[in-house]
């Protein structure tokens, strides 16, 4: 860890400050001007994350002690590879969605509820995401997570009050469990700083209980099966840009905290049964979510259940890291694979929801039975959807494939044939449920009458989908970035 040199570019800090400032500015400026902020902020954030990624890559992990107060008294921001890739992902997806949302959440005439309230929520969500990804203090993560929850629930509420309330209930419960865990941890150790906590190596009951509580709470927020009940209605009924953010980024935030807990904070606490349990739930998610996705009749619901399923893969990294899998030619294969999966899924899912949003804008609905011929009306959109689907199915040359390949290698090297089979089955099921809408969209030999969707807006999901595929081809930079400051445990395994 290197402290930033005096005068070094404060990339990490800017990633918090800029969106927060934008959020306040949006409140102040109102619905007429707020949508335009993103046109400035987006590029700025992309540049800043790029600089940060460069800093991390060249100088190693960055650590910022806020206010100059060292932990445990103060709060630190961690800029390691893990934070770096997710910050970049956030910048990309957020910018894309922000540009996309100019239309549904812009206002040509008078300020409306949506055009006013969406942008502060959006920027605050961005800030919250960044704060979570680079947060180095467990309580600070709690506050950031709550900010995230608030914005996410509010965005869901645009679509369905009921779904928003359900989401909020789950999130509240999750928060409480997490908070409970923090309380116990602080009481036992006197610190909340992730790095300081990582140096504690005694296994005490308190740490066990607190780890379990935090994990359980975060699982509810991540919507791991069987705690996923809130996700499909919420993601399925929110406006498309919001769904994109929720599925691609928001749930990853709590997942990253879980990773931080078990790979950084208390890897010694986790037992074999525990990590297996997580992966079993993950496998359950993959299969169950896919099966339900197969039964949906609305495009967005399919995508939402797909998220339930895809999340399952992320939990395979817990048993797969380390063990015999460490022998694979790729450093920390399973761990890196899991992170790649999160990235690829983030990009692909955002692309999908935005594409679905365009379909809804064009047709006024997203019932699969009635989207016949949409591929002729919106070829670029459906192409983007198809490309994103390729990544979700884990087909080469997409990022999803690379992720799956890394994890599969680890699984087989470790003798976890069951998980390997689930991964493959998951890919096939994904193909099955994503095939339905694509097939339907291609059917028919006429061009249905649709509302006008501009060309450049179709390019946004396409760009995201292409990125998701490109992640499999230009995979070295993100892969290398990911390895900076990677927990030793990612190689050695957390259960031994």
């Amino acid at each position: 860890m290197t402290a930033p040199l005096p005068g070094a570019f404060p990339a990490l800090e800017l990633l918090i400050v800029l969106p927060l400032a934008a959020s306040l500015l949006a409140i102040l400026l109102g619905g007429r001007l707020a949508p335009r902020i993103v046109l400035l902020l987006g590029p700025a954030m992309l540049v800043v994350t790029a600089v940060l990624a460069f800093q991390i890559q060249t100088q190693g992990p960055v650590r910022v002690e806020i206010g100059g107060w060292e932990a445990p008294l103060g709060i630190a921001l961690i800029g390691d590879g893990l934070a770096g890739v997710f910050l970049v992902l956030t910048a990309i997806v957020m910018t894309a969605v922000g540009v996309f949302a100019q239309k549904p959440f812009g206002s040509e005439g008078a300020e409306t509820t949506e055009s006013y309230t969406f942008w502060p929520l959006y920027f605050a969500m961005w800030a919250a995401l960044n704060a979570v990804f680079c947060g180095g203090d467990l309580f600070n993560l709690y506050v950031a997570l709550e900010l995230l929850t608030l914005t996410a629930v509010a965005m869901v509420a645009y679509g369905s009050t009921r779904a928003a309330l359900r989401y909020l209930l789950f999130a509240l419960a999750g928060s409480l469990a997490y908070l409970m865990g923090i309380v116990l941890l602080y009481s036992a150790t006197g610190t909340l700083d992730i790095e300081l906590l990582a140096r504690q190596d005694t296994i005490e009951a308190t740490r066990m209980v607190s780890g379990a509580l935090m994990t359980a709470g975060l699982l509810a927020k991540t919507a791991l099966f069987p705690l996923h009940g809130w996700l499909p209605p919420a993601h399925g009924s929110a406006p498309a840009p919001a769904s994109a953010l929720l599925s691609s980024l928001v749930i990853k935030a709590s997942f990253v905290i879980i990773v931080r807990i078990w790979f950084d904070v208390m890897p010694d606490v986790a037992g074999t049964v525990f990590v297996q349990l997580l992966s079993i739930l993950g496998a359950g998610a993959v299969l169950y979510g896919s099966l339900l996705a197969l039964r949906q009749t609305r495009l967005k619901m399919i995508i939402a259940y797909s998220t339930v399923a895809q999340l399952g893969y992320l939990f395979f990294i817990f048993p797969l890291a380390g063990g015999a899998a460490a022998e694979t030619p790729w450093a920390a294969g399973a761990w890196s694979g899991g992170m790649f999966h999160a990235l690829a899924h983030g990009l692909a899912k955002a692309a999908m929801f935005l594409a679905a949003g365009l379909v809804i804008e064009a047709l006024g609905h997203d019932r699969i039975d009635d989207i016949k011929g949409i591929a002729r009306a919106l070829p670029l959109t459906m192409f983007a959807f198809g490309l994103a689907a390729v990544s979700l199915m884990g087909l080469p040359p997409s990022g999803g494939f690379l992720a799956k390949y890394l994890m599969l290698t680890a699984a087989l090297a470790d003798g976890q044939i069951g998980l390997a089979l689930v991964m493959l089955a998951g890919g096939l099921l994904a193909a099955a449920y994503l095939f339905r809408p694509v097939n339907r969209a291609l059917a028919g030999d006429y061009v249905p009458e649709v509302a006008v969707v501009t060309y450049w807006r179709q390019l946004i999901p396409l760009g995201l989908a292409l990125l998701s595929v490109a992640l499999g081809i230009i995979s070295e930079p993100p892969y290398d970035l990911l390895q900076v400051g990677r927990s030793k445990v990612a190689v050695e395994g957390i259960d031994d």
Partner: protein
Amino acid sequence: MSGAGLDSATLFALTGAILIGIGVYGFIVHAHLLRRILAFNVIGSGIFLMFGALGFRGAGNGTDPVPQALIITGIVVALSLTALAVALLVKLAEEEGGATLPEEQPGRGEAE
């Protein structure tokens, strides 16, 4: 705290634990969302009480101020969430004429 026998701090900490249990009970058992929000607040304050009690050192040693600061932050956060929950609940009531989620009403499945 086993060494010091039962003192006030332990007492309050245990009270916090039981409050959490009570809150959990309410959070699960009630379909009415307002009561759930209430239960949520009970759990929250139970956790805070426990936190505070565990950071309490009795006279002389000085109380640990960090938990207190965290608790204040937590209280504000809880209020924020409560406010949103209440607003959502009122909207739900306006839209659907009920204060419960459909899947928790006996005899009605999820229809979304």
